[in-house]
């Protein structure tokens, strides 16, 4: 693709790309920057994309740019209290302790199963079925980093729900 052709492509799709960026980040100035970054990224691989797929392909790149922006602006660090309840219960613990912890584990399992997507499936696979992030990513057909992010957020939601359910 020549520079003139690429310029024509930008003119054809700039509104679409800008709209996608704006709808996701809701900041006019930032959407302009992200739209520009979208086309800069598209330039490197434009020859690999068939022309009939330009539209969804550019939307995907724009969504990626918006995701990176939103992620950096949104703090995802979570430390969950009572996380030990979510770990596998060891076999050599006293029965009464096991009974109490089994009660807690059952409660956690119930809460996990009430989570909404996209956190429900990753939580069930990670906390209840003890799958690794890579296994979850393969099964759910999501990138591993996305699975990790969703697990962090799931932990935060679970933390909040556990706190709400704790007797005062």
């Amino acid at each position, binding site marked *: 693709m020549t520079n003139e052709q*690429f310029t024509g492509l930008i003119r054809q799709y700039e*509104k679409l790309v800008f709209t996608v960026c704006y*709808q*996701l980040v809701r900041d006019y100035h930032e959407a*302009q920057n992200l739209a*520009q970054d979208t086309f800069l990224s598209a330039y*490197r691989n434009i020859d690999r994309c068939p022309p009939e797929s330009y539209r969804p392909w550019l939307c995907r790149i724009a969504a990626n740019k918006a*995701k990176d922006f939103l992620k950096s602006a949104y703090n995802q660090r979570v430390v969950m209290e009572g996380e030990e309840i979510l770990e596998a219960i060891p076999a050599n613990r006293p029965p009464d302790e096991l009974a109490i912890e089994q009660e807690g584990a059952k409660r956690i399992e119930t809460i996990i199963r009430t989570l909404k997507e996209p956190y429900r499936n990753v939580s069930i696979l990670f906390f209840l079925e003890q799958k690794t992030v890579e296994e979850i990513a393969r099964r*759910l057909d999501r990138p591993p980093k996305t699975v990790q992010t969703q697990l962090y957020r799931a932990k935060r939601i679970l933390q909040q729900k556990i706190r709400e359910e704790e007797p005062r």
Partner: protein
Amino acid sequence: MIEVFDRDGCLTDDALLALIRQEPDEMTRLEIAEHLSFCDRCTERYSELLCEAPLRAPAEPLADSVIEALARRVRVLFFHRYIAAGMAACLALTFWFTGVFEPKAEPGRNYGAVYAISEQITSKSQEFGWKFADRFQSFFDRFSSLDLKGVFQDEKK
């Protein structure tokens, strides 16, 4: 409150339409953006919905700023590449002419072959130095008609 994801973990139509109407909060928008970044099916659906939705125009047309940014990237790329090569060549020549690579002469030893090779390398280095200078000059002469796509393909290789 709308359901953003269906049982399969994909975006619902309601979620995409809400996004177009600019209703979701920041967290929901982040979740939607994350999903669109890897799900072809939902991205396809979203782009089809946008065909019927009013599109926003950027404050300034993007074409000029994108082409300018690409040209700037090319200049930086060439600068780094040729400056690095130039500095390596200067360093090598400096070491060569100051005798760093010359072995110490020992009595009774015949260094004829070594010196012959040394002469050859010296003349090659000088030739390289002149070629580098010529290329550097021609770079600035050619830059205005440079094909930017060709540069990035070389970079990819």
